[in-house]
C-alpha cells in the first residue's frame, strides 16, 4: 500500500485509536487509523470538521490532552515507538525530528518575544551552538523562508508582521533543526488566497530541498490537489480512503469521498443568460466609507474601507463581490443593509415595480429607514452566532414580520411554509438554536431573512464557515430561492469557486475599490485587471476539475 517502497517510512501510524471523553456523541475521536509518511512525501489528511484529523496530529506530537488518550495502536517515528513516550523523550524529539505548524500564526507565536528570539530559543534548547553561530543560523533560515530584510524581521515582534510573514516565521522555527517530519495543521486556512499560494509553494520547495516528510492537514480539496502526493480521507474518526492523489481525487472509491468530491464547487466559466430587461432592484453609486481612527492623544488616522463603489443588481440576478480580507467587501454589504452608515454616495433601492419611486437609503435617518428595512435582508457568515441562543426558532422567525404588524398566527403560518422551502421540518419551530448543526442553522437564518419577503438578499460569506458537503447544499438552496422568489442577491465571498457557482455578475474588490466588474463568465474567462489575474492564479487546485 505504500507508494515509496525504497525507504522505510518516517512516520508510521498503526491501527491507532484515540478515545473521546464519555458522554459525547461518539466514543472515539479516531478509530483504528493506519497510514505512513515516507521521506520526502506529502500526505494530506482531509476531512470535514469533527473527522479527527487534528487529533491525529496532536497524537503524533504527543500533545493530546489527558482526556483524549491513545487507547490502541502504535505511532512510530523512524521506527521508534513514541505512542507512550515519556515527556522528556518527546521534548528531545520535538523540533529536532518532528515539528508542527499551526493554523493561526498570531496565537502560535509569543507576542512579547521578538521573532528572532523565538527561533533562537529552539536552537538554544537543542544545540550546543554559541550565540554567534545561533544568530547566523537564524538569519540563514529566515532567508530560506524568503522573508525580506532578515535583520529587521528577526528584531520584530509578531504583531509587526503580516499573517503570511508570521506563518513563514513559524515554518522557519519548525524547520531550523531540519526535522524529518513536518506536521502542518491547516497552515493556510487563516490566510488570504494569494498568501496561501505563496506559503504552499514555500512548503513544497523546502520539503523538496530537505527531503522532509510532511503530514498536511486540511479541509480544502484545492490545497490537496495542489500539494499532496498521497491523500487520506477521514470521516468521523474512520479512515475511509487512502491512496495516491490522482486516484483519490479523480477515481474516489468510497461513497463518502465521492460525495465530498462532488460537493467541491467547480470554477465555472460558462456563459449564462442574463436578462438585461429585468428591473433594477439596487443601484449603488460612488459608495464611500471612511473610518476615523481617533484616539485621545496622537494623530488622527483615516481608514478608507470603501472608495467610490458603484454597481447595480437586477431582479432575479446575483452580483458577487470577491476579494481578500480587508478589501472592503463586507463594508459594502453592511452599508447597503445600513448596519453601518455610508460616508458618501448613494444607495438606491427599488423602483422595480412600475410607478414605484426608488428610495435613497444611504442617508435616511434610523426612523425613516425602518419601513424600508424589510426590503433588504442579510445572512451572515457564522451560523453559530447568527441566532440568539436564548430564543426559539419560532420566536426568531416571526420577530421581523411581527415588527411590521403581521399577526403571530399568520407569521407562524409563513414560517412553516419557508421552513419547507429551506427543507427543514416544522418541528424545528419550538427548538433552540443549539439543537441544530451549522448547516441547519444557516438554513434557518436564510428562512428568517425570507420571512420579510425582501427584494434584496445579501449573503455575507454565508457559506464560508460550512463544511464542503454542507456548503454545496446551502449554495444549491440559494440558487433555488433566487429562481423561485425572483430575488436580487448580493453574494459576498472570498472563495472564487463559490462565486463562480452562483454569480451572474462579478465585482472584484481590492483595498476598498472595485477593480473589475462584469459578467461572471467574462471576468473568470478573461480577467482584465492585474489583481484579478493574480487572485485567480492563486486559487488552489484551479487545474483540477472537481464536482464532476
Amino acid at each position, binding site marked *: 500500500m505504500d507508494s515509496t517502497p525504497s525507504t522505510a517510512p518516517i512516520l508510521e501510524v498503526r491501527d491507532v485509536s484515540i478515545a473521546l471523553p464519555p458522554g459525547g*456523541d461518539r466514543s472515539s475521536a479516531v478509530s483504528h487509523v493506519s497510514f505512513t509518511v515516507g521521506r520526502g512525501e506529502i500526505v494530506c489528511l482531509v*476531512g470535514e470538521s469533527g473527522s479527527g484529523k487534528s487529533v491525529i496530529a496532536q497524537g503524533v506530537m504527543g500533545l493530546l490532552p489527558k482526556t483524549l488518550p491513545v487507547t490502541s495502536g502504535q505511532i512510530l517515528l523512524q521506527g521508534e515507538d513514541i505512542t507512550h513516550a515519556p515527556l522528556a523523550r518527546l521534548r528531545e524529539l520535538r523540533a529536532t525530528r518532528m515539528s508542527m505548524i499551526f493554523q493561526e500564526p498570531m496565537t502560535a507565536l509569543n507576542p512579547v518575544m521578538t521573532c528572532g528570539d523565538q527561533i533562537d530559543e529552539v536552537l538554544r534548547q537543542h544545540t550546543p551552538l554559541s550565540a554567534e553561530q545561533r544568530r547566523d543560523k537564524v538569519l540563514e533560515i529566515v532567508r530560506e523562508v524568503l522573508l525580506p530584510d532578515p535583520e529587521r524581521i528577526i528584531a520584530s515582534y509578531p504583531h509587526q508582521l503580516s499573517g503570511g510573514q508570521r506563518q513563514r516565521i513559524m515554518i522557519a522555527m519548525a524547520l531550523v533543526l531540519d526535522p524529518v517530519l513536518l506536521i502542518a495543521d491547516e497552515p493556510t486556512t487563516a490566510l488570504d488566497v494569494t498568501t496561501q499560494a505563496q506559503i504552499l509553494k514555500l512548503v513544497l520547495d523546502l520539503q523538496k530541498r530537505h527531503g522532509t516528510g510532511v503530514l498536511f492537514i486540511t479541509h480544502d480539496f484545492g490545497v490537496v490537489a495542489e500539494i499532496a502526493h498521497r491523500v487520506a480521507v477521514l470521516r468521523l474518526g474512520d479512515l475511509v480512503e487512502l491512496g495516491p492523489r490522482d486516484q483519490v481525487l479523480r477515481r474516489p472509491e468510497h*461513497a463518502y469521498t465521492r460525495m465530498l468530491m462532488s460537493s467541491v464547487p467547480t470554477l465555472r466559466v460558462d456563459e449564462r443568460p442574463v436578462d438585461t430587461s429585468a428591473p433594477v432592484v439596487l443601484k449603488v453609486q460612488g459608495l464611500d466609507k471612511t473610518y476615523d481612527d481617533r484616539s485621545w492623544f496622537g494623530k488622527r488616522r483615516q481608514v478608507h474601507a470603501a472608495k467610490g463603489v458603484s454597481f447595480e443588481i437586477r431582479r432575479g440576478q446575483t452580483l458577487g463581490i470577491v476579494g481578500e480580507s480587508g478589501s472592503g467587501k463586507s463594508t459594502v454589504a453592511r452599508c447597503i443593509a445600513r448596519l453601518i452608515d455610508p460616508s458618501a454616495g448613494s444607495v438606491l433601492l427599488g423602483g422595480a415595480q412600475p410607478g414605484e419611486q426608488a428610495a435613497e437609503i444611504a442617508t435616511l435617518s434610523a426612523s425613516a429607514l425602518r419601513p424600508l428595512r*424589510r426590503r433588504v*435582508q442579510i445572512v*451572515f457568515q457564522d451560523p453559530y452566532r447568527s441566532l440568539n441562543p436564548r430564543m426559539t426558532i419560532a420566536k426568531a422567525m416571526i*420577530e421581523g414580520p411581527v415588527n411590521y404588524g403581521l399577526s403571530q398566527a399568520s407569521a407562524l403560518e409563513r414560517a412553516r411554509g419557508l421552513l419547507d422551502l429551506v427543507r427543514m421540518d416544522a418541528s424545528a419551530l419550538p427548538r433552540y438554536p443549539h439543537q441544530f*448543526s451549522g448547516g441547519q442553522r444557516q438554513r434557518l437564518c436564510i428562512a428568517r431573512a425570507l420571512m*420579510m419577503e425582501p427584494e434584496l438578499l445579501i449573503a455575507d460569506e454565508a457559506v464560508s464557515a460550512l463544511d464542503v458537503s454542507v456548503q454545496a447544499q446551502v449554495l444549491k438552496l440559494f440558487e433555488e430561492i433566487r429562481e423561485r422568489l425572483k430575488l436580487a442577491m448580493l453574494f459576498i465571498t472570498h472563495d472564487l469557486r463559490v462565486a463562480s457557482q452562483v454569480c451572474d455578475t462579478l465585482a472584484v474588490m481590492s483595498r476598498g475599490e472595485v477593480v473589475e466588474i462584469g459578467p461572471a463568465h467574462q471576468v473568470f474567462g478573461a480577467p482584465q485587471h492585474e489583481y484579478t489575474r493574480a487572485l485567480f492564479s492563486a486559487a488552489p487546485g484551479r487545474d483540477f476539475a472537481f464536482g464532476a
Partner: protein
Amino acid sequence: MSSSTPASGTESARPDFESLSVEAASVVTQRTAWQRVKANVSARIGGGVITLLVLISLLAPWLGTVDPSLFDPASRDLRPGEVGEITTLEGETLKHRFLMGSDSFGRDIHSRVIYGTQVSLIVGVATAVLALTLGVVLGLLSGYVRWLDGILMRVMDGLMAIPAILIAIALVAMWRGSLLTVVVAIAIPEIPRVTRLVRSLVLSIREEPYVEAAISLGTPTWKIMGRHILPNTVAPLVVQGTFICASGILTEAILSFLGVGLPPDIPTWGNVMAEGRAQFNQYPHNIFFPGIFLALTVLAVNILGDGLRDTLDPKMAKRG
C-alpha cells in the same frame, strides 16, 4: 448516526448525501443550564447550606428560641447550655436553656443568632438585587448610548476609588440606620462593578450577528436590548449577584460591629459580636457563635457562586 436531526424527515429524499455528510454529527445535545447546575458539586454544597439557612430563618420561632429582645438580669453571662430564667414582655418568668449562652444583658444569644439569620439573608439578597438592578440599567445605558458612556464611566471610576466601607459608613451616618438605609448603603459601592460588567457584556453582545440580524428585521432598539441583549447577560449576572450577596452580608456585619449599622436592638450577627467584644476574653461564646454563622453563610454563598460560574459562564470557568 448517533444523533438524530430534526431535518432528517424532509431531507430523506437524498439519503446518500445526508447520511454521508458528517454535519449531523456536529449537533451535540446539550444539557440545560439547570441540569448542569444540579450536577455541579460546588453548586450543590453551597445551595444545600443556603437552603438550610433559609429554613432556619423561616422556622426561627420553633427552634428553641425566645423573643430575641427579651432579657433578664438574673441570667447574665451564662455559659452555652446552661439553664436560666427569662422574663417575657407579659412579665411571665420562664425557665430557658441558653444553648449558646447569654450576653451581659441576659439576652439569649441562640435566639439572637437564629433571628439574625433572617436579617443577614435579607440584607444579602436585597443588596444583590438592588445593585444588579441599578447596575444593569446604568450598564445598558452606558453600553448603548455612546455619549453617555464617557460621563457614566468616569462617575463609576470615581465611586470605585473610594473604599466601599467608607461610602457605606458615610451613607448610613447621613440617613440613620434602618434595614433600608443599610441595604442601600451597601449596594451603592457595588453598583460600579455591576455597571462595568454589564457594559462590557453589552459592548460584545451588540456586535453579535444575531443583534445585527434583529436590526435588519426592523426591531426597535428597546426591544433589542430587552429581547436580545439582556437575556444573554443573565448567566454572568447571576454569578456576580452571588458574590455581591456574600460581600453584602459581610459588610452588614462589619457595619453593625462598628456600631454604624442597624440599631443594636435589631438582632444581627454584627450587633451580637459588637456587644460581646468587650468580654471576649471571659465569654468567647458571644463572638464565636455569630462568627461561625457568618463565616458559614459567606462561604456557602461563595461556593454556590463558584459552582454557578463554572456551569453558567463557561468563559470565566477554569478549564478542568
